[in-house]
């Protein structure tokens, strides 16, 4: 059976991504332009006001939000970067064998210690 996978990858292999990107961009631009040209335009002050279920809008819309979201984002950044370390490890898992496994167990142990700590610290307590 003929397999489709190349053995050696070339930079040219990545070129089609550009084509795909061009296509996507073209489609998006097309729909934007067309809808802009086709649709009617009738503005009024009341209509332009931001929607708050019919009640008059109060204050700035871009208000500070709960810090929990921020904490979530920060945690993601940290843990996601830890996950980055696992990708090469996972791909080469079999070659690394037992040594690699034990090392990663230690790594994950530390990760989990930190994880347990932040949970205990109340990161997911949205009530307060």
């Amino acid at each position: 059976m003929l397999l489709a996978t190349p053995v050696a990858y070339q930079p040219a292999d990545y070129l089609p991504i550009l084509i795909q990107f061009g296509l996507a961009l073209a489609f998006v631009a097309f729909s934007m332009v067309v809808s802009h040209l086709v649709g009617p335009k009738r503005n009024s002050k009341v209509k332009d006001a931001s929607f708050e279920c019919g009640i008059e809008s109060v204050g700035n819309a871009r208000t500070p939000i709960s810090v929990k979201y921020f904490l979530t984002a920060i945690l993601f950044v940290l843990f996601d970067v830890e996950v980055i370390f696992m990708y090469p490890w996972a791909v080469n898992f079999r070659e690394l064998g037992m040594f690699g496994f034990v090392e990663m167990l230690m790594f994950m142990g530390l990760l989990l210690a930190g994880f347990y700590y932040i949970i205990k610290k109340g990161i997911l307590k949205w009530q307060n």
Partner: protein
Amino acid sequence: MEQTIPEVIRTVPLQHYVFFAAALFSIGVLGVLTRRNAIIIFMCVELMLNAVNVLLAAFSAYRADPNGQVFVFFIMAVAAAEVAVGLGIIVMIYRNIQNTDVNLLDRLKW
């Protein structure tokens, strides 16, 4: 396959990587020195780090030496920690003065 990735990268002359990284780095440095918004300064610092990453990865490929890439991983991890701490600090300041302009921070004279 592992051996082939460096070959791929090597199809581009090394100087290009160096110039690219240097340009990226310079943009970052200029940003840090000229911008006044803490977040933008911070982003410029990240830009500098990424320039370093590109450079290290390129050198690593050209020297067929994995150490450079390992270093990149560590830089990324450290940068993430820095992001966490840095954004935390910026948020803390924003909560106190409702702004992130470093020029407003003059409680301590330079």
